[in-house]
C-alpha cells in the first residue's frame, strides 16, 4: 500500500476521491483508524484519512448546534461543549481500550461507525442528533444533507444513511450535531443480586416510570467485579441512572427506589461513582481485557437475558446488558462456530448482531453483520452504486462484495 492520502481540506479530499474514481484505485477510508479493527478488513490500494480536516466550524450553544470537520477529535468537541455546560446527547463511547488503540477517535469515525452509549436507551442514538453532514461521494462530488437547524425534512435524509455507513457510501467531511445542556447532577440506583431476567424486569419498570431514567444496565457478578465503582457491591448489579437538576435527582431517585421495592432494597451511587460506573459501561471496559471475539447484539430488551443465556450455554462467554437489556455485549472464543452461535441467538430473538472485535481472519471469514434478505440486499447494492459506482470506498467493509 502506498503512502496514505491525508487531504488538507474538503477540496483536496474531493480531488483525491475523484482521481481514485477515474483510476479505479480503491480507498480505505479512515479518520485516525482507532476503529480499524471493526467489521470486515478492507483490502484497498490506498488509505484516505480525514484527520487533517479538523476544527469546530460553528458552535451556537443557545441554538443547541455544533458543527465540526470530520477529523476533529471527539475529545476536543466534548471539551468545547462542556465549557458551555452542554454535552453530546448519545454519550458516544470510547473503545480505545477495547481495540487497543492509542489514537484519539474522530467525530467522523464515531458518526460513520454509528456508536452510541448508555443514554441511547432514553435519548436516542448518535444518528438521531446528526442534523447535517457534508460529504464526498465515490465519484468525488461534494454533497450535503440536512443543515445547521434542529428540524429539517428537506429532501432524502442522507444524514442518517451516512451515519453508520462506515465510509462505504461517501467520505463524511463535516458534521453538525444537536447538543443539549448537560445535567447538573447524576445518581444511580443499584439493585443487587438479581438474575438477568429479574434485572431486566426491574429496568423495564424503571424505564416505564415517569422518572426519566437515562441509563439502564445489568451486569452479572463477574463483570461488576471488573468495575471498581461497582466491585464493592460484591455480586450482580442492576443499574438505573437519573440525570437532572439536583433537586429532581434526589426526588426521582427516592421515588424510583420506592417503586422498585419489590426487586429489593436499592443502594444509591453518588455523582462520582455514577460517572465512573457509566463511563466503564459505555466503553465496555469489563470486556477490554478479553482475548477472543466481542459481539454486540441489539434485541428487544426483554429478550436480552435470553440471548445472554443462549450465548453462555453455547460458548465460553462473558456478557453484560445495557439499554435496559436491548444491548447485549458478549465476549467469547474467536471462532466461526462461536460467531454462528451468537448470530443464531440474536436471530432467534428477533434482533441483530455485529461481530464487533475479532482477529482479521475471522472478520474476513464470516458475515460480521447478518446478511440482508435478498430484496433488501439488491437495494443495498444499488444504493452503494448510487454513491460509489466503481466501489472504491471501503470495499467489503460491511458486506462481502459490496
Amino acid at each position, binding site marked *: 500500500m502506498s503512502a496514505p492520502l491525508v487531504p488538507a481540506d474538503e477540496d483536496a479530499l474531493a480531488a483525491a476521491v475523484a482521481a481514485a474514481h477515474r483510476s479505479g484505485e480503491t480507498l480505505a477510508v479512515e479518520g485516525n483508524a482507532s476503529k480499524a479493527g471493526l467489521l470486515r478488513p478492507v483490502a484497498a490500494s490506498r488509505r484516505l484519512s480525514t484527520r487533517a480536516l479538523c476544527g469546530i466550524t460553528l458552535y451556537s450553544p443557545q441554538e443547541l448546534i455544533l458543527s465540526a470537520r470530520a477529523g476533529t477529535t471527539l475529545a476536543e468537541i466534548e471539551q468545547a461543549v462542556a465549557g458551555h455546560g452542554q454535552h453530546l446527547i448519545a454519550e458516544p463511547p470510547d473503545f480505545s481500550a477495547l481495540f487497543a488503540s492509542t489514537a484519539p477517535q474522530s467525530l467522523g469515525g464515531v458518526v460513520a461507525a454509528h456508536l452510541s452509549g448508555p443514554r441511547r436507551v432514553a435519548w436516542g442514538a448518535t444518528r438521531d442528533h446528526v442534523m447535517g453532514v457534508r460529504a464526498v461521494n465515490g465519484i468525488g462530488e461534494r454533497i450535503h444533507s440536512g443543515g445547521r*437547524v434542529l428540524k429539517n425534512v428537506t429532501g432524502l435524509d442522507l444524514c442518517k444513511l451516512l451515519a453508520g455507513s462506515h465510509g462505504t457510501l461517501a467520505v463524511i467531511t463535516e458534521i453538525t450535531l444537536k447538543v443539549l445542556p448537560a445535567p447538573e447532577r447524576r445518581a444511580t440506583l443499584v439493585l443487587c443480586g438479581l438474575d438477568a431476567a429479574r434485572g431486566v424486569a426491574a429496568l423495564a419498570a424503571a424505564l*416505564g416510570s415517569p422518572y426519566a431514567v437515562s441509563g439502564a444496565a445489568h451486569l452479572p457478578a463477574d463483570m461488576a467485579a471488573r468495575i471498581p465503582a461497582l466491585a464493592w457491591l460484591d455480586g450482580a448489579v442492576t443499574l438505573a441512572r437519573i440525570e437532572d437538576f439536583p*433537586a429532581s435527582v434526589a426526588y426521582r431517585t427516592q421515588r424510583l427506589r420506592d417503586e422498585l421495592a419489590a426487586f429489593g432494597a436499592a443502594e444509591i451511587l453518588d455523582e462520582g461513582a455514577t460517572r465512573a460506573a457509566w463511563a466503564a459501561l459505555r466503553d465496555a471496559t469489563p470486556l477490554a481485557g478479553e482475548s477472543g471475539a466481542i459481539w454486540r447484539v441489539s434485541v428487544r430488551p426483554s429478550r436480552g437475558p435470553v440471548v445472554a443465556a443462549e450465548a453462555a450455554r453455547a460458548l465460553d462467554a462473558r456478557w453484560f446488558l445495557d439499554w435496559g437489556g436491548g444491548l447485549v455485549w458478549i465476549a467469547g472464543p474467536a471462532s466461526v462456530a462461536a460467531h454462528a452461535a451468537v448470530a443464531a441467538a440474536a436471530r432467534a430473538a*428477533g434482533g441483530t448482531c455485529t461481530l464487533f472485535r475479532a482477529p482479521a481472519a475471522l472478520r474476513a471469514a464470516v458475515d460480521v453483520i447478518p446478511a440482508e434478505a435478498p430484496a433488501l440486499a439488491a437495494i443495498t447494492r444499488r444504493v452503494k452504486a448510487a454513491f460509489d459506482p466503481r466501489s472504491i470506498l471501503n470495499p467489503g467493509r460491511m458486506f462481502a462484495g459490496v
Partner: protein
Amino acid sequence: MIAQPAPKDDVLARRPAILAGLRALLPETGVIGEPVRMKPYETDALAAYRQMPLAVALPETTEQVAAVMAFCHREGVRVVPRGAGTSLSGGALPMGDAVVLGLMRMNRILEIDYADRCAVVQAGVTNIGITQAVQERGFFYAPDPSSQLACMIGGNVNMNSGGAHCLRYGVTANNLLGLRIVTVDGQVIDIGGAHMDAAGYDWLGLLTGSEGQLAIVTEVTVRILRGPEGARAMLAAFRANEVAGACVDAIIASGIIPVALEFMDRPAIHACEAFAHASYPLDAEAMLIIEVEGSTEEQDFLLGRIKEICRNFDPISLRVSASAEESLAIWKGRKGAFGAVGRISPDYLCMDGTIPTSRLAEVLGRIAQMSAACGLQVANIFHAGDGNLHPLIMFDANDPASFHAAETFGADILKLCVEVGGCLTGEHGVGVEKRDLMGVQFSEIELEQQRRIKSAFDPGWLLNPSKVFPLKPEVPLAA
C-alpha cells in the same frame, strides 16, 4: 401554480383493464373508479391543487398492498400512497394516470408491549390513536403534529412529522424502531424491528421522511414512552419580537429545555384571541407559551427559574398556570391557530421553514416588509426552541391574482429561510409545494445524488411521481 407533468396516454387508454386488474386483487369495496366517489381523493390539505386519479385502491393487508404494487409495476402504472390526506405540501396529490393507494383501511394496532416500550401498528392508524391505545397505562406516542386527530402513522413516517413537543421528544424519525415496507415491485421487506440499533445501513432513517418516493409503508413499530408525572404551561408576553427571541435564547442557555416553547407574533396573538378567548395580551408584539414537565415541585422549580429569566426582558405580562385547566386555557388559543386564521381570512397558506433561532427577529422583520409589499397579511407561529417557523399567509382563493401573490410570498419566505442558514421545510415535507424550490437548497449534483437513491428503490419512477424532485426539462407538462 406548480406545473404537473402530462399523464401517460397509454395508461389512460388502458384504464378499464387496469381497474379490472385491481378489482381482481382486492375485496369488492377496495377499488373505486367512479368519478363521484373518487372526488374525496382528488386533493389533500394543500387544497389549491386538485387532480382526479386514475383509480383508488384501498387494500386491507400488506399482502394486498404487495399484490397491487406488483400489478402496477407490471403495468407501468404510477402509484400515489395516501394516509388521511392531511399533507400541507401536496404529498398525496394524485395524478390523472396514477392509482391512489389509500392505506386508511389498514387501521389495526397489532401489538402493544409496555415492558419493551413499543407498539406495532398498521399504517392507517391515526397518530392520536396510538396514544389513546396506551394512555390508560400512562404511556404516549410522542410526535404530535397539529393534525394528529386525523393524520395516520404511515403518513407521519413518510413525511417525518414533527409537532409542538419535538424539542424534548424528537420528530417521527426519533420515535421509530421498525417498518414493514412493500417495494415498488411488490416485495415485502422488514426493516429494523423492536430492537434499538439495526446493523447495516440505516434504511429506517432513509425511508423516514422519504415522502413515498422509495417504498410503501404498511406497518410501523413505534417507541411508546411513559408520560411525565405532570405538565404545566406559562405565558410570557413581550414588547418586541427580538426581545422574545432573546428570552428564548436565555432560557435555553440556562440549561432548561422546556418540552414546548411556542412563539406567536402580534397578528397571530390577535387572531387566536378573537377566536379562542384565551385572555392573550393584545398589547404584546410577541408571546411565548412555555411548557415544562415533572412533579408539581419540579414544575414549580422550572417555571420559577424561567419566570426569573423572563423578568430580565421587561415582560408585558407573565402568567404561570396553577393547574391543568389553566394550562389548557393557555394552549387553547395556540391549538386553535389554524381555525383562528381561517376565521379572519377566506384562505391561508401554512408555510413551514426552519431558521437558526438567532436570526428570528431579522426574519420576522423581513417577512413583515414582504407582507407590506405584496399586500397580504401574515401571522407567524413558531416552534421557537427548534427554529421551525409557520407563517400563515392569508389570501383569497377565488382571486387567482391573490393566490399567485400568496404562492410567491410563500416561496420568498422559504428562500429567506435558506438564505439565513435554515431550510425549506421543517416538518411538512417538500411534496408538490416546494418541489421547484429544491434548487435553492441543493446543488444539481446533490439533487442528482438523491435522484439516484430514488432510482435504486424505484427504477421506473412510479412511486409518488412529480413530487420532491424538480421535473427534468424534457418532461412534457400537463396543459
